[in-house]
């Protein structure tokens, strides 16, 4: 009851009306998927916002226990389907850590380039859909123009535009096709100017500022306590980026900044995403510059199939490939946790192996799922319309929340 009195008070006068429960979703254009929020409200103000999830639950972890290690990679595409590359990456890195496999330099650079492109495309959609939710419809059209360029690049790379299944245990599915590097370089060259365009539309826009500044504020301490990660955490001023703090692949070789906000409101989370897009394109430019020639897959016959051209010409290679695909490989007994900085936050895989060809247990630490816990503390006491901004600023994707 104290809660209610304090939030509904207006200049010291307490106005208490009958509490109303409002169901937002699961079919609602601004819940970014099948999220159902049960909002308890006093007039226009939120007393409690309780997320009700699970509409898309497919039991990924149970499926993983019944598949070979390599067979689970396409399923990870369907987690955060706006950034499949990083899901692939996190899973294959966890398996590689488990078996103690190191991949060649060129493979690492390709992984960095594709996951940074993925980050840009995910942030573009996050910011675009956010604008759409708050009434700035133009932005999503601009954002999709550039997202289209990235999807074209991915289509060149692996033929798919949404579920790539590009990374594999021990490397990537194929080397960069001819023309990819040039096209990617063109993209990196024009992209920062395009980000300036988005900023011209939004950053100084009075409506955008009023809808986002001071909305959904969360302190740095609370953000850490609630398990927020990624741009949403950095918006509160905690400079934790896994790429910088515990670098994986070759991230320690690039010069890039980790942007952070100061107030922890929706606007800060927006600014962090915008700046991260710029930094990601800087990383890609440097990676294209530094990338060495050489093989892309580890030469470890026990775990990795031979190159494609050998499979089509050499009988032994074909048998080897067939054996790996149909029987899989045995993985040492043990347990590992490996996480990467995905566009939404810390995406981790915890794998327990009992020494067989199938994982004993796979646990997916999905950033959107954990981040969703902050919807309630962020929107308490705010107006109903602010909940829309709060959800957009957390950028949840329900493939990942519901697993």
């Amino acid at each position, binding site marked *: 009851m104290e809660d209610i009195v304090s939030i509904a008070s207006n200049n010291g006068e307490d106005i208490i009306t009958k509490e109303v429960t409002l169901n937002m979703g699961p079919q609602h254009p601004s819940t970014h998927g099948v999220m159902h929020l049960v909002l308890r409200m006093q007039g226009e103000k939120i007393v409690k916002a309780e997320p009700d999830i699970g509409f898309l639950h497919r039991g990924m*972890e149970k499926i993983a226990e019944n598949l070979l290690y390599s067979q689970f990679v396409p399923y990870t595409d369907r987690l955060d389907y706006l950034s499949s590359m990083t899901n692939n990456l996190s899973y294959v890195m966890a398996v590689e850590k488990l078996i103690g496999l190191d991949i060649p330099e060129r493979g690492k650079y390709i992984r960095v380039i594709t996951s940074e492109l993925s980050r840009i495309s995910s942030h573009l959609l996050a910011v675009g859909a956010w604008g759409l939710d708050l009434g700035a419809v133009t932005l999503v059209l601009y954002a999709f123009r550039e997202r289209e360029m990235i999807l074209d690049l991915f289509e060149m790379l692996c033929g798919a535009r949404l579920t790539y299944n590009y990374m594999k245990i021990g490397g990537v599915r194929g080397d960069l096709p001819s023309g990819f590097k040039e096209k990617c370089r063109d993209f990196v060259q024009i992209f920062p100017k395009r980000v300036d365009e988005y900023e011209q539309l939004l950053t100084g826009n009075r409506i955008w500022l009023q809808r986002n500044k001071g909305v959904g504020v969360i302190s740095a301490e609370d953000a850490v306590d609630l398990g927020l990660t990624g741009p949403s955490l950095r918006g509160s001023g905690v400079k934790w980026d896994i790429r910088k703090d*515990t670098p994986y692949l070759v991230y320690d070789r690039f010069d890039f900044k980790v942007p952070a906000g100061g107030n922890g409101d929706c606007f800060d989370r927006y600014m962090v995403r915008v700046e991260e897009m710029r930094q990601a394109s800087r990383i890609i430019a440097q990676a294209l510059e530094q990338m060495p020639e050489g093989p892309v897959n580890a030469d470890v016959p026990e775990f990795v199939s031979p190159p494609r051209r050998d499979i089509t010409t050499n009988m032994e290679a074909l048998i080897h490939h067939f054996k790996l695909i149909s029987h899989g490989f045995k993985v040492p007994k*043990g347990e590992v*946790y490996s996480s990467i900085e995905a566009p939404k936050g*810390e995406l981790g895989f915890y794998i327990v192996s009992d020494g067989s060809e199938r994982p*004993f247990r796979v646990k997916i630490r999905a950033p959107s799922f954990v981040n969703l816990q902050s919807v309630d503390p962020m929107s308490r006491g705010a107006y109903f319309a602010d909940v829309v901004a709060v959800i957009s600023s957390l950028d949840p994707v329900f493939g990942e929340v519901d*697993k």
Partner: protein
Amino acid sequence: MEEKDIEKELPAPHYSLLVKKIKDRFGGAILETTVFRGEVTHVVEKGALVEICRFLKQEPDLQFKFLSDVLGVDCRKSLACFEVVYHLYSIPNKNRLRIKVRVRENEAVPSVTPVWRSADFAERETFDMFGIVFNGHPNLKRIYMPLDWEGYPLRKDYPLTGYKDQYNPFGVEKV
């Protein structure tokens, strides 16, 4: 693992911080310590869990203020119990630690929500998938499955295709 093997596996500062310091403080409550691929795991006594977690969070050297995940593992075949695993991260020190408790079927684990609020959803998920009860959790109910669902899907004896009912003709017949 033997003490000297653990020492060999880890860099000296990590060993003194993540193994020795914790073992000195809670000697008897640490049942087992293992190191695999540089990751430290402590299996701890169920009764001392919350006290250990509070220590790990508040101790100025350790500062494990970030709880990344809570999950269950069904080890009933090998160990005759479930394992509840906690993944911790220290943002200033940049290191990770894994804490485990073992719990028999129909036993409860103390909730760590008073220590880290982020344990809320994760413990609910573990309850939903394994049926492990967390004592002291403010809102322990199913999170993914419908509230009236029977059985716990991630247990090893739960069939992959589910149980047969009017909505699921391909499920396994209930015995």
